[in-house]
């Protein structure tokens, strides 16, 4: 007994020693270390003695002490591999139910993993095509005015800083500078196409590997009014004619084409149709003092090419010195500069003012951790199911062991089996991947820059991933089976320690089911809100109205042409399309209290707009037809405006004729309209709205169309558009579709939630099934005896299902309050006009999940409850 109390060396270190040490040396070494440990105990603390023990164990890890891998053993492993695969195959076929559950569970979660892997693969292949990609750094800046410091860096910097670095800094190779933005309609002779691009200096072709097909990379962007087109835009413009040296017209300026660059690869974070020499700006913006200001950090991107093995710290110090010097030129301002590696831009920190769309690390982390949870959950199910089946398999292991299989052989057998299953699952997952891929890419606009295209390397990565999942899933069962004692198992099956860890499994089931209920209920709620928002009564009519984006064209011409079509029932003009999240604000003074003023939102329309959209006039009149260049004198307001400024005691009829000051102009109220949703339905802002008469160019035509054959009508409309504007594409959308689009974010959340819900429910069901089968099988004998003693089938069914029902109820009682609290207390107060939360939505999801679970439990327990007790008791 006394020995028990003695402090002992750390067990794990002892195990480590036993693991690596040659068996013939082990006893000797262990003895020596124990002796030393005892000796250290006398004059040192226990902790110290233990540390010394561990260090000694590690020190003994030498060439002569480590166990050599036995060749014969390896050979056996290799020979047995075929046998393992064969037995795995047989096991899969023998247990079709189990295997298909496993394969389905794994493949669903693996498909998410595949999406993740290909996404990461795409993200990390961004910008790698540049030869010097590991030496290019972007200059990023952080703005501070007095104490107002921005939280994060911006991707842009000032032109001043960019030029200073290029001209003054030593120890750099070059600086490529891009300026925002050089867009517009480019024309040659009578052909015009819209192109977009950047201002860029001549170093762009040196720093980056954009290949110049024609022209001299060193000088192409040197002279003012030089322009470089991509191959594609040159082809669009000139067809097969050589474009080099031609002069094109853009915004009334002449530019000479000095180069043709190969089209920008998809995996470039900088995308353009054309580049124009930065020196042009020096000519155009000669009198703009702001151009070279130190704090004009919003529209220039600078990329530094460093020499190989450059010292970034010294460079950073030089940057700091530059800031210190230039901060003095602008009062109260500090601009901090830093470097960001090129390859870090696509998947790195989410900076503002990016040159193009980036995905950023947040999205990667969220999606990554979601898929990790899903995969882990599926692996755990595999483990759970395998161990649940251990009653059947342990006899096999017992026989294997008694005819000479080592622990390691059993381990590798089970791992081979799980890898086999996960490779089968990979096939299914791959199919799922192909199905999910387009949906995933269309989920969110920023994801559209991914291709998720298959390459041999990616396929190889998939296979590696499947093997990894297989090993992960099979490791625990393999270790479990390898520990089985052959003698005990063959003598008495009941001795298999399957009952361990039962609580953990119960907790897991509760967790999985809570997650399932949360996912499905949240999806249902979001679905209801989405439907609610897109069919919301906005206070005006949107039916059959087609909004055509005018793109700087003259409205009169188009109106004249369009009104000749019989399908067109009415046309109005407007500044913006309301209720889809557009806001134009203006200042309005309170006529009762000159010191009070507030921002109101507005839309400028013509006289046809209000009747066309069925806006309800409560008092007063609509605008009368008016010329656009006459002075603005009239305004129509909504009820909220009357309320906000307390005009005429909020009496609409009396408010007519009151004069309000808007944007410095005195405007007479000629009408009051009913309140309507100006911004987005789910948004609280945009209550006070005034309608002004259109004095500027309208941006949209609102065309009411009644057509029996919509595609034909659309073609007619497009033909008319092409006649008037051959350059820009025809952009027309039905108002209802635009409103639906405005809620695309919600739709994406719904899709993602739905997908996740299906996923979690599948995985949870698989887990539950495994658990049910496991418990019923272990209780076969008990049930048989109960039956013999006269238990009814119904009673048995209840007995077997009771514990699971309790688990499910616990899961529901955790999930429902969470969901309710989240939506009712956290989310809904932020959202205007939301649909109320009904108990029905809350319970539909729960009931669906519970029913599914009941079917799973019922079928299994029913099978067991109906077995003939004599059969089971006979075989014991």
């Amino acid at each position, binding site marked *: 007994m006394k020995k028990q109390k003695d402090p002992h060396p750390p067990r794990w270190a002892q195990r480590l020693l036993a693991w690596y040490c040659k068996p013939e040396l082990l*006893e*000797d070494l262990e003895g020596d270390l124990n002796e030393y440990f005892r000796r250290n105990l006398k004059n040192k603390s226990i902790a110290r003695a233990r540390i010394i023990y561990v260090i000694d164990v590690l020190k003994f890890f030498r060439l002569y002490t480590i166990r050599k891998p036995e060749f014969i053993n390896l050979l056996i492993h290799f020979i047995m591999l075929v046998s393992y695969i064969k037995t795995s195959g047989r096991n899969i076929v023998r247990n079709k139910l189990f295997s298909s559950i496993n394969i389905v569970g794994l493949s669903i979660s693996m498909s998410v993993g595949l999406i993740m892997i290909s996404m990461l693969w795409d993200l990390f292949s961004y910008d790698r095509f540049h030869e010097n990609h590991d030496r290019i750094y972007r200059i990023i800046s952080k703005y501070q005015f007095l104490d107002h410091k921005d939280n994060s860096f911006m991707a842009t910097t000032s032109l001043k800083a960019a030029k200073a670095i290029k001209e003054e800094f030593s120890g750099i190779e070059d600086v490529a500078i891009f300026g925002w933005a050089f867009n517009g309609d480019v024309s040659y002779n009578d052909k015009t196409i819209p192109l977009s691009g950047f201002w860029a200096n001549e170093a762009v072709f040196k720093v980056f590997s954009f290949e110049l097909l024609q022209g001299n990379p060193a000088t192409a962007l040197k002279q003012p009014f030089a322009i470089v087109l991509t191959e594609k835009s040159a082809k669009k413009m000139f067809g097969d004619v050589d474009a080099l040296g031609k002069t094109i017209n853009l915004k009334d300026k002449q530019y000479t084409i000095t180069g043709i660059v190969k089209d920008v690869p998809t995996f470039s974070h900088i995308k353009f149709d054309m580049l124009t020499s930065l020196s042009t700006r020096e000519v155009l913006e000669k009198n703009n003092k702001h151009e070279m200001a130190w704090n004009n950090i919003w529209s220039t991107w600078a990329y530094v090419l460093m020499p190989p093995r450059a010292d970034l710290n010294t460079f950073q110090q030089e940057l700091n010195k530059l800031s210190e010097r230039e901060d003095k030129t602008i009062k109260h301002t500090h601009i901090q500069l830093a470097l960001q590696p090129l390859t870090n831009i696509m998947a790195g920190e989410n900076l503002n003012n990016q040159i193009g769309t980036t995905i950023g690390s947040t999205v990667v982390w969220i999606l990554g951790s979601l898929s990790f949870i899903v995969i882990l959950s599926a692996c755990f199910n595999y483990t759970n199911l395998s161990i649940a089946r251990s009653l059947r398999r342990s006899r096999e292991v017992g026989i294997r062991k008694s005819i000479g299989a080592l622990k390691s052989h059993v381990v590798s057998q089970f791992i081979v089996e799980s890898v086999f299953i996960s490779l089968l699952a990979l096939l299914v997952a791959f199919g799922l991947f192909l199905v999910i891929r387009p949906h995933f890419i269309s989920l969110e606009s920023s994801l559209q820059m991914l291709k998720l295209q298959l390459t041999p390397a990616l396929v190889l990565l998939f296979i590696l991933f499947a093997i990894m999942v297989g090993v992960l899933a099979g490791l625990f069962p393999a270790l479990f089976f390898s520990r089985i004692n052959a003698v005990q198992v063959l003598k008495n099956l009941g001795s298999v320690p399957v009952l361990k860890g039962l609580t953990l499994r119960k907790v897991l089931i509760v967790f999985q089911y809570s997650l399932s209920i949360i996912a499905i209920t949240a999806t249902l709620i979001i679905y209801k809100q989405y439907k609610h928002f897109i069919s919301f009564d906005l206070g005006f009519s949107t039916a059959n109205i087609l909004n055509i984006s005018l793109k700087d064209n003259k409205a009169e011409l188009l109106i004249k042409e369009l009104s000749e079509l019989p399908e067109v029932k009415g046309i109005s003009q407007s500044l913006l399309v309301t209720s889809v999240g557009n806001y134009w604000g203006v200042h309005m003074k309170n006529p009762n209290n000159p010191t009070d003023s507030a921002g109101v939102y507005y839309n400028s329309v013509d006289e046809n707009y209000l009747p066309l959209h069925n806006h309800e006039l409560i008092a007063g009149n609509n605008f009368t037809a008016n010329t656009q260049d006459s002075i603005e004198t009239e305004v129509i307001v909504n009820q909220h405006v009357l309320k906000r400024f307390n005009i005429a005691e909020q009496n609409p009829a009396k408010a007519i004729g009151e004069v309000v000051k808007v944007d410095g102009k005195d405007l007479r109220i000629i009408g009051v309209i009913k309140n309507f949703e100006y911004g987005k339905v789910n948004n609280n802002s945009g209550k006070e709205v005034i309608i002004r008469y259109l004095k500027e160019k309208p941006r949209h035509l609102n065309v009411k169309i009644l057509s029996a054959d919509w595609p034909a009508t659309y073609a007619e409309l497009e033909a008319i558009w092409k006649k008037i504007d051959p350059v820009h594409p025809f952009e027309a959308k039905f108002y209802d579709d635009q409103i639906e689009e405005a809620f695309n974010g919600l739709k994406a959340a719904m899709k993602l939630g739905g997908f996740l819900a299906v996923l979690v429910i599948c995985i949870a069901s698989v887990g539950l099934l495994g658990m049910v089968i496991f418990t019923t099988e272990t209780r076969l004998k008990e049930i048989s005896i109960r039956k013999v003693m006269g238990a009814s089938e119904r009673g048995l069914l209840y007995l077997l299902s009771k514990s699971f029902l309790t688990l499910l109820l616990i899961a529901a009682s955790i999930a429902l309050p969470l969901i309710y609290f989240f939506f009712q207390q956290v989310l809904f107060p932020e959202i205007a006009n939301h649909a109320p939360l009904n108990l029905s939505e809350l319970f539909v999801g729960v009931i669906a999940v519970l029913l599914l679970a009941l079917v799973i439990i019922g079928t299994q327990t029913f099978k067991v409850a109906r077995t003939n007790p004599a059969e089971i008791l006979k075989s014991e």
Partner: protein
Amino acid sequence: MKGSNLGEFEELVLLTVAALVNDAYSVGICDELTKYTGREVKLGVVHAVLNRLEDKGLVKSSLGEATNVRGGKRKRYYTVTNAGKASLLKAKEVRDQLWSLIPDFGFKAI
């Protein structure tokens, strides 16, 4: 294998094994060496050297009885083989011969 030539530390360990006669096991050798050389001798080093000496055939080992101090593990006792004796003698001989070449060295040093 470097042949039967002994390194300095190998020679010391071998001598200690010989000196301890029937009580030469790793920890004992370690203690003895520490006592006589005055330098701290690490167990790991002694182990490695004993292992090498056994490989060279200069010592042989056998397991003794288990003791409580060693947590129930048996000691491995080492004894010097004939080859070991021969190489010790040879080393001593070489040294003696060299010593004899130096006249009055001992007196000068003092």
